[in-house]
């Protein structure tokens, strides 16, 4: 179970950004590759724990799951895999270990609340 230490890293990273920009965070948007080695559900519950007693308490973790995409040398094209148990082109069946995406573990955006200035 390394999701807790990953969740803590996410919270720390978001906290630094929030402080730097002087904003309050509602949600952290994360890209999570199928080959990242991180389990989404475990990460979500760890995130809540990691947020406790930080400025991010009550914020959401919005996870975008990224499928594995390989490059097929026979088709000379990028192909998404339907399973991480078979690294073969879904079109022609040629094996490939050239991974184009699917290892992401990346904070891509922060959702912040911005109050429009009050009308005088």
């Amino acid at each position: 179970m390394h999701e807790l230490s990953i969740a803590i890293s996410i919270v720390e990273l978001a906290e630094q950004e929030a402080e730097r920009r002087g904003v309050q965070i509602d949600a952290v948007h994360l890209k999570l590759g199928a080959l990242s080695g991180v389990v989404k559900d475990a990460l979500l519950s760890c995130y809540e724990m990691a947020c406790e007693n930080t400025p991010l308490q009550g914020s959401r973790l919005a996870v975008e799951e990224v499928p594995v995409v390989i490059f097929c040398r026979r088709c000379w094209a990028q192909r998404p895999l339907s399973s991480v148990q078979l690294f073969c082109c879904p079109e022609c069946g040629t094996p490939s270990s050239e991974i184009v995406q699917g290892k992401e573990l990346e904070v891509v955006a922060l959702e912040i609340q911005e109050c429009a200035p009050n009308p005088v």
Partner: protein
Amino acid sequence: MRPEPRLIEVRKNVLKQNDVVARSLRDRFRYAGVFVVSLVSSPGSGKTAFLEKTLTFLRPNYRVAALVGDLATENDASRLARSEAPVKQITTGTLCHLEAAMVQSALDGWDLNQLDFLFIENVGNLVCPSSYDLGEDLRLVLMSVTEGEDKPLKYPTIFNSADVTVVTKVDLAVAVEFSWETAYNNILAVRPGMPVFKLSAKTGEGMEEYLRFLAARLIESRQAAAV
């Protein structure tokens, strides 16, 4: 006025800190000319026995050393010390994997120029270590015949992140009705083209071929560094 949600782009790798340390370790290893192999497997697959044999066989011809990660005990380091190679234990406490910074501090005071091979034995775990780069040249995943042929399908992420698979305890293959062909196909399904060795650390069967492979990789890596 109602507050409006707004998105600000960040784009930051969560494991950046680890990756930065791993990169600096990799540079240091290359500069020193030491070839670094990390070992991952589930608990009980025979990592320590395999590493002990590896160190013992390499020691007459190469300068070898090892770092071993363990949750709580120093048993592995004591076992490996029998090979008479320098061995250092990294006790991770409750942490289920090694991180680059732990390798870095364990190497404090070591003269890497005096080494040909450095082995890093990760904590027995097929899940967590896959996310952490340790700066190694080669990640070796072990599976023993007693664990069954479907290990790669159950843990595709770690097998995919590895460079080599070693199937251990082949002296027990017949007793547990292990199908080499099924296992081999499963390994290649999750990582096409990966070199696979089958061996027994106990009887020594298959060790020679694997050691020749390591020696060749050391030469290749030094040639690449010299260019």
